[in-house]
């Protein structure tokens, strides 16, 4: 019975034009990709094909499946074809399960067809790559360190990261005891190093490291000097002789120069066995993507048992979107609380106690936290990161994703059946009235919130003629969604600040500034934040200076973009005046020294003039 309804659903979907257009579009994209030139690294083309398939084409297909699955039941109820089935000996549970099975079959067919095209594109593009770049077509199995220790002097520990200074004062050691060939196809071993590095030599971005690999059984080792880039992971090949059964591979690392620092954790060095099983890894990735399809179509069918077609399409898309931005929702809930930031960085609007924020805590924050528990977490189904890094998708990941989908499916089925069981088969006018009422309520609340937000906008006058062409394109593409993107980024920036993830914060700040280039408060707030708050988090003057300099540069950039805004120049002058004052900051002489190194004489004179102008205009601040 379920099979009959499933095949019927599949047949119905296959005859719809929406699907034909989607498949055609997907194949067209797949066909064009291999010949699109890329300017980046040689394997960027292959990565692009994979990214476009798993993000763009899959999104297209998911949209199609949502459109079909969210409308199937409502349309049958509307044109009353459901009577034909309900008057036959079929339970409502079987109808729902049959529909879901039909759409699952459809998703599987779609995925198989398009992934075959994708595979052909990947192999075609990869065939033109030099041998050393074909690593992307391998699936590597990860081995975590069995032991991790710091030998010698530990400089300090912060947020679980152990920092050691260079020059052999301390050495980090990772031991791997269970490495062996796990697969017939294992062709070799390599190690991924993702170390946190900081240079005391100004803002140098390369740091020489001494890396030694040794096996305790063969009793010999190999040392090499690697010039690592700050914030860039690197890969090292492991000599096959170092990998033996029932032995331990030790990897020791330390920065060579005494002025450099290295932050390490247990998981910063991983060893991988390289296998040539890209196909099976790809199949696993496609299966996980199929589970994603399954989950969203179950949600769509569940919604369609109660809602009309348009409303159930919208709600399925909302669930799909929110399921991908759970992190943002959590960030947003984190935003709705009191901040204990330093005085300097708090804009006036945040300083005033706002009763709305207090209520928001109960009205928005708690429900948001609960929503995060209820919504399906679609980030769980991200298999692309494994493929892009050439890492074998662990079977546990596939199993957990499968289990997650099944549990969610059972819950959704239970809800759908109990709803459809009680629901009158056809929608009478009062159902439509109720839906309209809720939609109107939703629209009104969105309108009110927008009006409230708009009241803050008097300072954000934009003048398009100053837009940098490279920056204005994403702005134009974002269109009306720019506001949403900016809100998203602000929430993220504050959350990253609270979590003390400063490097991520820097990226977010740059993005915000790109989206709101003519809003001086953005530049001022973020420049202050970096120059004062973040700099204050560090102990070493080198690190402090790094953030102060970044903050100053940020403010400078803002001033250049907004030459008519006096506030930015004032803030910049104030920062130059204040930060280099020895009475306030004990490392001010060091900062001055560094500034001298980085700026030319003319620039320094300008800076001095600016600082002087500030102190002259506002004598009270001195």
């Amino acid at each position, binding site marked *: 019975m379920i099979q009959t309804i499933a095949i019927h659903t599949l047949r119905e979907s296959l005859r719809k034009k929406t699907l034909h257009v989607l498949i055609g579009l997907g194949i067209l994209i797949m066909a064009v990709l291999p010949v699109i030139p890329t300017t980046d690294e040689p394997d960027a083309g292959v990565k692009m094909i994979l990214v476009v398939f798993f993000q763009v084409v899959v999104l297209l297909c998911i949209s199609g499946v949502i459109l079909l699955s969210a409308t199937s039941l409502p349309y049958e109820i509307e044109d009353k074809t459901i009577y*034909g089935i309900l*008057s036959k000996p079929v339970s409502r549970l079987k109808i729902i399960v049959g529909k879901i099975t039909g759409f699952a079959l459809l998703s599987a067919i779609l995925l198989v067809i398009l992934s075959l095209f994708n595979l052909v594109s990947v192999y075609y593009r990869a065939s033109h790559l030099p041998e050393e770049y074909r690593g992307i077509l391998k699936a590597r199995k990860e081995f975590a360190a069995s032991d991790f220790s710091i030998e010698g002097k530990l400089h300090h520990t912060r947020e679980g990261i152990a920092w050691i200074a260079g020059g052999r004062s301390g050495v980090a050691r990772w031991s791997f005891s269970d490495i062996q060939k796990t697969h017939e196809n294992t062709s070799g071993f390599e190690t991924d190093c993702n170390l946190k590095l900081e240079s005391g030599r100004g803002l140098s971005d390369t740091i020489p490291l001494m890396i030694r690999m040794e096996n305790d059984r063969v009793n010999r080792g190999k040392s090499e000097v690697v010039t690592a880039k700050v914030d860039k992971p690197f890969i090292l090949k492991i000599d096959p002789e170092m990998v033996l059964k029932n032995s331990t591979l030790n990897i020791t690392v330390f920065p060579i120069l005494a002025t450099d620092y290295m932050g390490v954790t247990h998981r910063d060095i991983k060893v991988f066995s390289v296998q040539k099983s890209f196909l099976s890894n790809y199949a696993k990735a496609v299966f996980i993507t199929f589970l994603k399809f399954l989950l969203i179509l179950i949600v769509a069918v569940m919604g369609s048992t109660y809602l009309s077609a348009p409303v159930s399409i919208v709600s399925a898309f909302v669930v799909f979107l929110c399921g991908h931005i759970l992190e943002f929702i959590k960030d947003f809930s984190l935003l709705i609380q009191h901040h204990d930031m330093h005085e300097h960085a708090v804009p006036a609007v945040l300083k005033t106690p706002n009763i709305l924020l207090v209520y928001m805590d109960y009205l928005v924050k708690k429900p948001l936290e609960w929503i995060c528990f209820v919504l399906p977490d679609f980030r769980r189904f991200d298999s692309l990161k494994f493929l892009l890094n050439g890492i074998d998708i662990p079977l546990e990941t596939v199993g957990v994703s499968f289990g997650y989908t099944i549990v969610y499916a059972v819950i959704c089925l239970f809800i759908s059946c109990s709803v459809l069981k009680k629901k009158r088969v056809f929608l009478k006018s009062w159902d439509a009235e109720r839906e309209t009422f809720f939609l109107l309520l939703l629209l009104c609340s969105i309108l009110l919130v927008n009006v409230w937000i708009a009241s803050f906008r008097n300072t954000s006058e934009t003048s398009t003629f100053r837009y940098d062409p490279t920056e204005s394109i994403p702005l134009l593409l974002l269109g009306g969604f720019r506001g949403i993107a900016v809100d998203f980024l602000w929430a993220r920036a504050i959350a990253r600040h609270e979590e003390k993830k400063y490097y991520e914060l820097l990226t977010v700040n740059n993005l915000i500034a790109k989206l709101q280039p003519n809003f001086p408060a953005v530049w001022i707030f973020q420049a202050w934040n970096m120059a004062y708050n973040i700099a204050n988090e560090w102990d070493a003057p080198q690190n402090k200076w790094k953030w102060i300099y970044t903050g100053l540069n940020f403010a400078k950039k803002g001033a250049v973009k907004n030459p008519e805004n006096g506030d930015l120049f004032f803030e910049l002058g104030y920062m130059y005046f204040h930060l280099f004052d020895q009475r306030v900051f004990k490392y001010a002489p060091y900062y001055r020294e560094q500034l001298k190194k980085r700026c030319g004489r003319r620039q320094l004179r300008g800076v001095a003039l600016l600082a002087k102008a500030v102190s002259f205009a506002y004598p009270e601040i001195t």
Partner: protein
Amino acid sequence: MDSYAIRTEGLTKVYKDFWRRKSTSALTDLNLTIERGEIFGLLGPNGSGKTTTVKLLLGLLFPTSGKSWVLGYPSGNITAKRKLGFLPEESYLYKFLNAEEILDFYAKLFDIQKKERKRRIDALIHEVRLDHVRKRPLSQYSKGMLRRIGLAQAIINDPELVILDEPTSGLDPIGSREMKDLILEFKRQKKTVVLCSHLLADVQDICDRIAIFNKGVLQVTGTVKELLSQNDAIEFVVKNLSENDIQAVKAFVESRNGNVLSVDHPSSTLEDLFISIIQRR
């Protein structure tokens, strides 16, 4: 086994508005029994509660109060639905399928084996005279053709009880007559037929018993003969009588205190005339 094909006790359906207030009483306190093997007509104007009754019996709607049983099982029961055929008011069929596919789909829902399925589909398509368009998608069918294929799907499972909602709507007079013949054939096969119609002539022709609804309330039930017969009037139908003889008979009746209401030539119905003309050609 319940001797009734259909039984209802205080069956009531009330539609409520957005604020859960009572807005429309579609059906009020229906107590009805339909015997096995009879052709029962549900009559009434539009919106009188006929279709609501049918939907409640099929389990397509849930009653506000009261109970109903179909073939001895509570309404909506899966076992009862196996022995039941339903032709809705309009043919709500999947328009992207053709006649064979739609019958195959519904037959599969009854778990009918492949061989038997094929045999029944061929027989039914022939019976409803759609052989020439069996491969054509239903979207290209006329209303009458859709009605016929609708009837075929309703009896694909050889049901014990057939519920037909406005079976002759959209059919031409020949199709309409064939439908009536088919219903009488059901009776010969000892099937129970519930007929829902507002075309009184159809019902009068074929129904054993009828129930008349108005504004959701059952007004009257009984056999057609019981409800229509005028016990104080007599009708003679005589052939080959001259005008003088007619006057003599009239005088004789009046001499016996009889009151002659009309003396006229009997006429056949327009339907009979239409069919005789069409069949002659």
